[in-house]
């Protein structure tokens, strides 16, 4: 029996290998595009572009490509990137009105500026080098100053606070990076249709950048093939999230504005990108389920879903999906053409109101204290309304608790005193052991590395607010280290608040197609939110100060040196004789006074004036004066000559 099995195994392996090879060669690079539109409760519209490009496992990555961008593949090959996310964001995500507990916000609400994190597949000792090289490559690829993340003072290696647990993870963010169209264009270049065709043709730059929030994201992950000798596959996910304000003519303030794609973007979709495997437009309406009947079997019922008393859609959806908190209309844009462009519109007829699902706690961060010496950072977590309804509560020792991870990077010039960490729950100070479950601190080293604070709080479920404060001293930078606009202040990157026991996912009642957008929504994603960026004013020196200091010290030294030399070569006896002879000659009022004064200073009695003529004395004085003036003039002339010459 055993021998039989043994002889079978190689055969099976061979067979599976052959099947895999045959399958692998057939598998091609796939691209798909999708657009999700979602009216927001505060009369804005969210548009979420989603592009996914998959390269199957192959050995020719970085060399031969059909749809997948060669540049990205070469990046992955060269720096051995296992997973990476890069986001460019402008504006702040409004967690209260735009949602905080859905996959869209947990994945696409990003901190202002640039955020980059990457996990590498290299030995531990090479991770930092790979990171540095990667930042340079990306900064060239995306026309951004990502290379500033190269310096070890600007990135950190989170252990568990970030959500992805890996010791080869590096995280950095640049809050001050201005994001604009020069970053979007290279991002679009990675798409096979760029913005020439398909859904991405909607990206009219003025309308995109006029929005309240826009975040372009690039996420790539490698998929291990699991086969010996075969490289890994790459999944590249590119998303652009925009929050726009539709122009409204309606005077009623509680009426939701009606919009269409052409009014939002100023463009229409004239067909899908021919290279995309699927190209869909989704319209998500939240809080709509209560009004509708449960079954949508009949044609009339289905029709009612998209043309009813509340609103109507300008196009008939191809499918309607129900989800726990709302409806999802699916449109296929393959049918549209030049003569019949796809221009989805939503027309509201009645005022309607709904609210978004929110994260259990809403986070904000601010600075305390005044002056240029010290201050404190406080993070305030406030309970939201929807907190009670949310799943993910845990019972520890019979108490209901909410877990919250806080991850914060401090630049080295913010010298944080970790012992001053104070935690208040409902305005009452708590000891560390009561609420702090885990904490990981890596202090900063001056000019070498930034500090990092990771902590896990366990708050009781009925918490109304929780506050964390920590004090810091402001450091002094070397004169070379100040940025050009030092007086503007220095940014502290956003803190990341994540809720490890809460996961957001959209749960569709019907099992659905393999749309990459929907399947990414279906995956459970960690609920997270970023706080504001803080602006800390540091003491900025007068940058001409070094020269002032040099000049003053040098002058003092010169005075000291000169007087010392004079003392050394002074002939006191001779002077006394001279004074004596003068005193005998004349007793002018002022001169006498002066003589007396000098004598007093020297501590010698006034001697009788000698018989020398005062005329000679005064002429001597005047020649001395003239000589001095000439000397100074000469020096000034020399200075003028040298300074103008060069």
């Amino acid at each position: 029996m055993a021998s039989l099995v043994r002889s079978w195994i190689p055969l099976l392996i061979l067979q599976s290998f052959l099947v895999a090879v045959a399958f692998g060669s057939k598998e091609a690079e796939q691209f798909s595009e999708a657009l999700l539109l979602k009216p927001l409760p505060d009369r804005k519209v969210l548009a979420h572009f989603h592009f996914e490009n998959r390269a199957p496992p192959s050995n020719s990555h970085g060399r031969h490509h059909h749809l997948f961008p060669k540049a990205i593949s070469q990046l992955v090959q060269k720096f051995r990137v296992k997973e990476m996310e890069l986001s460019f964001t402008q504006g702040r995500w409004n967690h209260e009105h735009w949602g905080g507990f859905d996959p869209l916000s947990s994945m696409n609400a990003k901190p202002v500026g640039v955020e980059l994190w990457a996990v590498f597949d290299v030995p531990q000792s090479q991770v930092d080098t790979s990171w540095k090289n990667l930042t340079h490559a990306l900064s060239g690829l995306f026309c951004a100053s990502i290379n500033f993340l190269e310096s070890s003072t600007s990135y950190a290696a989170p252990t568990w606070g970030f959500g992805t647990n890996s010791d080869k993870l590096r995280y950095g963010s640049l809050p001050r990076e201005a994001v604009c169209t020069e970053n979007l264009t290279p991002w679009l270049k990675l798409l096979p249709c760029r913005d020439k065709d398909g859904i991405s043709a909607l990206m009219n730059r003025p309308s995109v950048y006029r929005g309240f929030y826009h975040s372009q994201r690039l996420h790539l992950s490698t998929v291990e093939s699991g086969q010996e000798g075969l490289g890994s596959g790459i999944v590249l996910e590119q998303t652009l999230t925009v929050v726009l304000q539709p122009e409204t003519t309606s005077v009623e303030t509680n009426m939701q504005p009606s919009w269409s794609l052409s009014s939002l973007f100023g463009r229409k979709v004239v067909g899908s990108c021919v290279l995309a495997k699927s190209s869909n437009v989704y319209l998500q309406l939240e809080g709509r389920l209560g009004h509708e009947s449960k079954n949508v079997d009949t044609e009339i019922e289905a029709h009612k879903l998209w043309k009813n008393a509340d609103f109507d859609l300008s196009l008939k959806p191809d499918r309607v999906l129900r989800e726990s908190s709302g409806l999802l209309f699916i449109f296929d844009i393959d049918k549209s053409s030049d003569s019949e462009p796809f221009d989805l519109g939503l027309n509201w007829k009645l005022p309607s109101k709904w609210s978004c699902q929110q994260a259990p706690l809403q986070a904000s961060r601010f600075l305390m204290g005044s002056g240029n010496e010290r201050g404190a950072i406080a993070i305030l977590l406030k309970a939201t309304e929807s907190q009670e309804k949310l799943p993910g509560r845990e019972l520890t020792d019979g108490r209901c608790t909410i877990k919250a991870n806080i991850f914060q990077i401090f630049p080295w010039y913010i010298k944080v005193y970790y012992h001053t960490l104070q935690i208040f729950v409902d305005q009452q100070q708590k000891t560390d052991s009561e609420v702090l479950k885990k904490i990981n601190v890596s202090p900063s080293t001056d000019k070498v590395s930034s500090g990092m604070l990771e902590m896990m709080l366990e708050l009781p479920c009925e918490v109304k607010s929780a506050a964390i404060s920590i004090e810091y001293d402001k450091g002094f930078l070397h004169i070379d280290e100040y940025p050009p606009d030092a007086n503007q202040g220095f940014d502290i990157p956003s803190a990341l608040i994540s809720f490890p026991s809460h996961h957001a996912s959209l749960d569709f009642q019907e099992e659905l197609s393999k749309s990459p957008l929907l399947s990414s929504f279906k995956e459970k994603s960690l609920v997270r939110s970023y706080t504001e960026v803080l602006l800390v004013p540091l003491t900025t020196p007068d940058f001409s100060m070094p020269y002032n200091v040099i000049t003053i010290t040098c002058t003092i030294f010169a005075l000291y040196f000169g007087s010392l030399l004079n003392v050394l070569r002074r002939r006191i006896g001779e002077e006394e004789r001279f004074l004596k002879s003068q005193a005998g000659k004349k007793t002018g009022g002022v001169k006498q006074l002066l003589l007396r004064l000098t004598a007093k200073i020297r501590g010698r009695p006034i001697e009788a004036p000698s018989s020398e003529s005062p005329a000679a004395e005064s002429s001597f004085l005047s020649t001395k004066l003239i000589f001095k003036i000439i000397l100074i003039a000469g020096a000034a002339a020399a200075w003028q000559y040298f300074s103008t010459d060069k």
Partner: protein
Amino acid sequence: MEETSDRLNPTTDTSGVTPEFDPKTMRSTKPGLKRLFITTSVLFSFLLGVPFLWKSVEIYRSPLPFHDIDSLSDQIESTPLRFPCNLHAVFVGFESKDPDNLRSQIQDGINQLTHQSSQCGSCNVSISVTVQNLAEQCLETLAHNPSTCSYRCGVIIRNEFGVGLDDTVDESLNDVFSGCSENSGKTYSVVVVNKENANGEDEVIKAVVGKRRHAWVVGSGLEERYGDIVARVSEIFVKVFMNGGRDEESIHGEFMPVGSDGKIVLSFSLLNSNPRDWVYDWDFQRIDDALLAPVTKALAPIANISVESQVLYHTPKSSFSSWDEKLQSYIFRTSDLPFFVNSNEWHLDTSAGASGRSKILQFVVYIPSGKECPLLLQLPNGEISKTNGFISPMWGGVIVWNPESCDKDSESPIRNTISPQDLEQIVEIFLGQFRQLFGFKSEAIYTSGLGTYKILPSERGFTEWELDVLSRKHTCFNLHSCSTTLGSLSRLVRSLPRMIIKDEIGEQVKYSLKAAKLAQSNASLGGYSSSASSSREARSLAENAFFHPSIMSVSYFSYEHCFAVYSPFFLPVVGHIVLAAFREWKRYRQEKAKYLTWLTRKKTA
């Protein structure tokens, strides 16, 4: 203090000692030296400090061997690099020819063709001639070079030679000359076979250049026309083996598309100008493995070649084309070519894999959209280009590939794959373009005033003698570029006195010079590959030194800065010291004069 008290004495005692003593003009004691000594010593210590100060504000400049750099560039300019080459001519079926006589005639012919000019990368020829008569006896010239091939007499049989395919003849010749030693340069052989005049009429002379380093001329009645034959032998050697069959005098160094780190990246792009009409894809992996791998392997001694490919969409060309009724196609002319490449829309992306200073050659296959299909290239003489492609030196090449039918059959575009036959054709055109980028001809026939030569193409893209030409030119080009780079570096360094030069740069320059010297000596000894590799090293080191990140770090510690920092201290202090020293000296002289007058007065008294 003591001195002052000393000096007080004479004034008090004067009345008693000398009645004629005048305290205003004389003094009785020697003037003291203490103060003069103090002030001068301070002055001198300041003066001594000046060199130290100068040293402290000096910036670090690694000493560069300027003299060696100049001598290298002078040497390369004045005496071009020449490689030893051996020519072995075998005359079969010649009755009454003296090999030494033939040798000198061939030498004359070669000298005439090269015009005695010695360009860089040419050959230092040594000729040996063997004559095999009808009785299969051989006469040889005395070997000047002991390592030349020895031809075993009688191996080539007069009337059986040259029968069959040229490829097999080439192989058989390779066997004949297999005993060649290659220590000192390459040996090229030309076999001239005088056949029996079987038909009685004058047969056409057939001249073939093989894939290796052999050529043969076959004909009948050659003995009578031997002057012509000798001219052809020397022409084969000079025009083909030495210059690679190029028309121009010499391909200038700039046209060597190899990066300074010795790498070439061949980036192939398939451009679908409008994917809404049709989408074409290719299986480039197979092409790479089957057709390009031998080429890259053959060129390995000259450059390290890597291949990548991509497919791009929505990439219209930026020139216009016009409809031609007669040809039933769209036409673009050679005058449009400068505008064909659309650098806005063709993001042929420089490869992240090609780091540093590798050379990237773009090869583009352009598939026209439905609006401009079929698209043909019209040559200036009105004919349609056979390859439908063009090259741009140092950039790459473009091939326009028209789909089989230009009708859009359906609304939705179909995804097609270019068939393997079409792909092979494309690769053939590409190989021709690639050869052109290296300066070779893409035709299999070389025509000169004396007749035509058939050139056997190699399946590896480049024949062995072409590779020899390339490696000679490459060595030469590398050395030339190394010397110009070092020359401009030395000029730059000499023109900027406040530029910091790190030791690293100095070392790179030193090693670059060393490698260049090594390449020169290897070349004169005939080591093709060793001289190519050391010349490549010399060039890349020179470029590394020139493009060193620290090279432009001109010191911020400028003269103005120096002046501003030091003048507040040194100007007043130096003023004090100089004045004090001057006054002390003046006073000393005055006092000394007083003392001297006193002395004279005393003497006279």
